[in-house]
C-alpha cells in the first residue's frame, strides 16, 4: 500500500532565546487506509507531532509529504487548501458551535471554504448524519446533545470535505467507557468503509490496543513502532 503521509527527519524547537527541542529527527510514514495510534506520556511531544502532521504547526526542520506533495515550499494559502482537501480533525473537546444545530455544524467546513450548500453537499451531510447515527437529533443545538452525540457530530464534520486522513487528539478522552467503545467502533467503520487513514493520539489503552499500529513517543523520539500483524 502507498504512503499517504510521510515525515522525514522532523525536528522542532520552541522558544527564541532559550530553545527547547521537543522533536528529534523523526521519520514516519503512514499507509493509505491504515488505522494508527500514537501513545506517550504528557510532554513526550505527541501533540506537537500531531500538530505538525496536521500542518497546524511547522517543524523547525524536515519534510512533511501529504498525498505526494511536500508542504515545505507551500505558502499559507496553498497549505490551507491542502489541509482542507486532505485532513480532518477530531479533538477531545469537540469545539462545536453552540448556537448551531448538529447539521449546521457538520456543514461548517463547506461554508468556511466559501462553497455553496447545494443539493449534493446536503446529500453528503445527510449521509454522514445517517452514518454516525444522529438522524434523530440532527436539528438539535450542539448544547442539547450528549457528549457521545457531540463527538459523533465532530467526526461527521471532520469527514464533510471527504478528508482522506483523520487526525484525532484524544477523541475519547472526555467520554465514559461505553461511549468510548461506540466512538471507536464508528471510527473503525469509517476506516473500513471509506479507506480513511486514522492517526489517533490516545491515553486510552482500550482504544490503542485495537488499532493496527502503535507508535510510542518518548522525549521527542520514537521509542517503539509496532504492528498488530
Amino acid at each position: 500500500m502507498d504512503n499517504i503521509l510521510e515525515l522525514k527527519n522532523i525536528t522542532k524547537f520552541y522558544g527564541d532565546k532559550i530553545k527547547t527541542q521537543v522533536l528529534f529527527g523523526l521519520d514516519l510514514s503512514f499507509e493509505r487506509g491504515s488505522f494508527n495510534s500514537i501513545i506517550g506520556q504528557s510532554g513526550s511531544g505527541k501533540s506537537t507531532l500531531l500538530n505538525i502532521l496536521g500542518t497546524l504547526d511547522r517543524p523547525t526542520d524536515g519534510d512533511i509529504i501529504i498525498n505526494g506533495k511536500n508542504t515545505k515550499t507551500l505558502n499559507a494559502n496553498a497549505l490551507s487548501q491542502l489541509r482542507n482537501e486532505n485532513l480532518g480533525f477530531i479533538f477531545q473537546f469537540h469545539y462545536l458551535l453552540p448556537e448551531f444545530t448538529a447539521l449546521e455544524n457538520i456543514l461548517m467546513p463547506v461554508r468556511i471554504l466559501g462553497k455553496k450548500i447545494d443539493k449534493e453537499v446536503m446529500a453528503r451531510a445527510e449521509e454522514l448524519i445517517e452514518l454516525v447515527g444522529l438522524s434523530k437529533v440532527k436539528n438539535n443545538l450542539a448544547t442539547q446533545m450528549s457528549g457521545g452525540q457531540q463527538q459523533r457530530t465532530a467526526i461527521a464534520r471532520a469527514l464533510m470535505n471527504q478528508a482522506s486522513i483523520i487526525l484525532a487528539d484524544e477523541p475519547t478522552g472526555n467520554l465514559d467507557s461505553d461511549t468510548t467503545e461506540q466512538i471507536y467502533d464508528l471510527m473503525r467503520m469509517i476506516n473500513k468503509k471509506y479507506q480513511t487513514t486514522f492517526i489517533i493520539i490516545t491515553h486510552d489503552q482500550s482504544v490503542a490496543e485495537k488499532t493496527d499500529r502503535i507508535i510510542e513517543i518518548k522525549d521527542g523520539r520514537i521509542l517503539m513502532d509496532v504492528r498488530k500483524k
Partner: protein
Amino acid sequence: MPLFEEFNRAFQALDQEHCIQLTYDALSNEIISVEDLYENVLRKALSVLTDKETDPTHKIWREHVQSSIVRTIIEMTYPFVIKQRIEILNKKAAVVCPDGEQHELGARMVSDYLRMLGYETYFVGRDTPRLEFLDMIKTLNLDVVAISVTNYYNLSKALQTVVDVKEHFPEVTLVAGGRGLDANAEVLVKHDVLITHDLNDLKRILGGNA
C-alpha cells in the same frame, strides 16, 4: 477420531468434562506427551479463537469459558510434567507477563516446558508491575526470566522491563514469546532478548546442552 478433532468438538461445545477426560486418558495411556498436548491440542484449539476485531460475532464470555477449560487441563498436567522431566539442572527460572498483560495461558505452558527442561521454575503470571521484576530476580536469584506478551499494546511495558533488567542484572538470560511478538520481535531482539516460539526453541536456547 483423532484426538485434536474430538477435543475441539468438545471444546467448541464448552464440554469441560469431556475435554478433561480425553486429555487425561491420552496422557495416562501415553498416547501423547505433555509437549504434544500443549502444541498440537491446546495451542491449536486456542489459536482458532477469534476476537471482536476480526469477528463481530465473537463472544468474550465464550472465550473466557474456553480459557478456563484450558487452564484446568494445564493444572491437571502437572504430575505428567514432572514425570516427563528430561533432567534436573541447577538453575532457576521465572515466567512473567508484563504490567497490563492479562493473558497468561501461554506463559503457564512455558513454565511447564521449563520444568521439563530441568529448571526450578516459578510461574509468576499476569500483570506483573515493572519494578517487581527486579525484586523477583534478586529474591529468587534467577538465571532465566521468560516474558510472555500476548497483547501487542503491552510491548511497551515489556520493553521498559527488559531495559531495567538488563541494566541491573545483565547476567540474567531473557527470553520472550507470545502473539504480541509475531510481527514485532525486533523490538526486544535489539536488547538481546532471545525469542522463542515453542518447546524446541526453548530446548535449543535453554536446554542442558545449550
